[in-house]
């Protein structure tokens, strides 16, 4: 199999879906000093999307991702413990909110109901994708959180449960509710 060349990463950060074996290989290497770029190019968009759930702007989300990724790297955890990486992002995102009193007031509502200003950001290509993205943004927060981790970060339900501090069954249940809600909302009236 031809080795992947990530020299272009500085110029262009491509997002693509990896096969499981490739992904594991990449994840295993993210803790090394040299391979963090290639790994971040793979997981960065998903991490950013996950962080956007708490951040009001892309800039804030990038701050969160930067802090979490660097913190994770500094502790030199194995990246195959992906749940810990996402838990770190979540923890830093909540700290980020708490740091701002104005946002602290919003924290309660963030978990209680969907906030249309904090919807995930996607690069859609047509009207159907645009509607799908909007529908994802309108999901209840707990369902959207699981959906983002499952679809765009490719975590297992076990990992999702570990990252969010919920049981595996709860994660699976929320995922199914999310899909059901999406399907319901996307049906023509």
């Amino acid at each position, binding site marked *: 199999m031809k080795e992947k060349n990530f020299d272009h*990463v*500085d110029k262009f*950060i491509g*997002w693509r*879906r990896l096969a499981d074996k490739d992904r594991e290989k990449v994840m295993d290497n993210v803790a090394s*000093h040299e391979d*963090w*770029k290639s790994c*971040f190019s793979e997981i*960065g*968009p*998903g991490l*950013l*999307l996950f962080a956007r759930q708490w951040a009001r702007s*892309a800039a804030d989300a*990038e701050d969160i*991702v*930067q802090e979490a*990724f*660097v913190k994770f*790297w*500094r*502790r*030199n955890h194995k990246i195959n413990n992906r749940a810990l990486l996402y838990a770190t992002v979540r923890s830093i995102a909540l700290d980020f909110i708490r740091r701002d009193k104005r946002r602290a007031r919003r924290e309660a509502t963030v978990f209680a109901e969907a906030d249309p200003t904090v919807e*995930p*950001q*996607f*690069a*859609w290509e047509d009207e*159907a*994708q645009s509607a*799908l*993205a909007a529908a*994802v943004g309108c999901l209840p927060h707990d369902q959207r959180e699981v*959906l983002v981790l499952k*679809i*765009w970060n490719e975590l297992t339900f076990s990992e999702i449960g570990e990252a969010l501090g919920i049981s595996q069954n709860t994660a699976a249940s929320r995922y*199914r509710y999310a*899909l*059901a809600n*999406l*399907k319901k909302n*996307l049906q023509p009236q």
Partner: protein
Amino acid sequence: MSDFSELENDLKALRPTQPSPVLFERIEEAMADCRTGASPARQRERSRYNWLSLGFGLAAAAVAIVLLLARINTDQTRNENAEIAQVSPSSQTRPVLPSVSGVNGEAMSSNKFISSGTTQVVYNERDEGLHFADGSRQPLRRLRYRTQQTWQWRNPSTGASLRVSYPSEEVVLIPVSGQ
């Protein structure tokens, strides 16, 4: 779950927005900072380095102190030989010790001690009552003070210092006027 497979495929086709290139640069910068100073491995290295530096620093300081003390001792020995170390009554009235009359001006300046302080500590005061001096009808109150006097000189060129401390007793007569 199979009912949602089409929807899942549609969701997977949605692509999250890319992180900005600036984020990549910022993380790279943060990573570089970690490598130079904050990663666990580096912290251990830096810790060892600091202990090593501390050891060398202490050793250097000890050597410097020994050299300084040796120099002071040498200077004091030289001063004794030059007959200036003995405390004479005149030294009490002259705060600056007489400098050694050297062969040249440089030697004189290096041996010059300048008064850097004088202290007088009264550790006992005794009132010895009224007394009449001979041939005087006015009473005098006699007070006796016991003190510890300390004189200190310093050589600015060598940093050496000389301190003389001695006990003294002083009797003060205060005229008392009757009302």
